[in-house]
């Protein structure tokens, strides 16, 4: 019922020399962006259903976060406390193993990160700067017409090891009942120096 055709069309149109070089008019740039966005949303559903099958998440909803770069990601910022845990599927589209630090916005510091075997892995919490909150609100307002769910909060960073052309699964869980939790970063301002 879903396809990647819309994204294919949008990408094809964006091959025009004006799109490539940025010499299109503003209303045309906006049209390129709109078509890419429509294509992305459609393709996102294909990817979500594919990942749900691969990871045996079954009927659970799978989300991507296109505004993750401005720390807007409702699934990870939600209060996944109590019995629910946040599942993160990390897919590697390249043909070699990669180990990289993954960063997601969270609203609480009481979290731990577990790998797919249930073992806790090292993670770090970085406070969101005032400026990044400003940027987040700017984009969320501009593109979604609404205010950001949480300004401030934290970035949760952990190291993901992902096989070639494959995926790894990580779980972010409430720290309740656990001895350790994610390490809060140390902060020094220019005055400290």
């Amino acid at each position: 019922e879903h396809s990647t055709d819309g994204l294919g069309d949008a990408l094809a149109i964006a091959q025009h020399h004006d799109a490539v070089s940025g010499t299109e008019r503003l209303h045309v740039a906006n049209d390129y962006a709109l078509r890419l966005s429509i294509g992305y949303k459609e393709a996102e559903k294909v990817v979500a259903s594919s990942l749900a099958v691969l990871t045996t998440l079954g009927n659970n909803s799978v989300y991507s976060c296109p505004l993750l770069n401005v720390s807007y990601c409702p699934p990870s910022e939600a209060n996944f406390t109590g019995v629910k845990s946040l599942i993160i599927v990390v897919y590697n589209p390249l043909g070699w193993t990669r180990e990289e630090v993954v960063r997601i916005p969270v609203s609480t510091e009481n979290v731990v990160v577990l790998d797919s075997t249930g073992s806790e892995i090292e993670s770090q919490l970085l406070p969101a700067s005032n400026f990044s909150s400003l940027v987040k609100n700017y984009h969320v307002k501009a593109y979604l017409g609404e205010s950001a769910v949480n300004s401030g909060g934290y970035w949760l960073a952990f190291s993901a090891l992902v096989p070639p052309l494959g995926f790894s699964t990580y779980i972010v869980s409430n720290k309740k009942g656990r001895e350790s939790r994610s390490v809060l970063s140390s902060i020094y301002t220019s005055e400290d120096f």
Partner: protein
Amino acid sequence: SGETFEVGEGNLVLLYTKNDGKLTRYSNIRNSVSAAAEQSFKYYTGYNGTDRVFQASGAYVFRPNGTIPINPEGYINFTVIRGPLLDEVHHQLNEWLYQVTRVYKGKEHAEFEYTVGPVPVDDGFGKEIVTQISTGLNTNRTFYTDSNGRDFVKRIRDFRPDWELDVHQPIAGNYYPINLGVYIEDESMEASLLVDRAVGGSSLEDGQIELMLHRRLLNDDSRGVGEALNEEVCILGDCKGLMVQGKCYLRIDKLGEGALWRRRFGQEIYSPLLLAFSEEEESSWL
């Protein structure tokens, strides 16, 4: 200690001055590479004009009319965040320019994440914002830029291999498109700067690399587009200039050891890890 402080828990260590938070040195403990590395920001004011008089800077034409440094005296307010996986240095240069520098424990490159905009144009001038990385490398007017992500091509300042170049625009005349990155080298080291998007760039002085991060211009350059490169986002009738956020990555290697990283890591920039999220009951996810 002394006048500087270190950032980075792994092989890569960046040195910053304590009094103004400026980057001064790049050191890789693993391969004993250590080089001066300074970063600065500036903007070029765009020519206001027509196609006949004072050719304007616009979508097609890059024609700077003056160079204005941004906070040349240093960054008064900066913040350092340290942790087990990565360290960050936050610099707020002014109201519309912010940069986070990251050093990951397991990586040997520095990551710069810049946020630029909305660029103010109340003074009647369009602006083209650039950053420069200056090293001590003796590059003899030579630098290398990619060709649409493919081979790196040798560029020589104020020179073309196949015709006699008469330089009228010393900045724009030496600018090249950057899709993957740019690097410089001397007899012992090479410094590479990779990008996550298409930008313009150059090496206007020996040992230095320059990237253009954002452009906001007020005049049509009369080359066909028919409007100024003045992109805006409007929310309920309130229009502001575009805000851009991007990354570039710096690594300094011994001569001949940078090419592998440029190819491999360039591919990783182009094909980042994809994330998807779901939720599950604590007891059932295993």
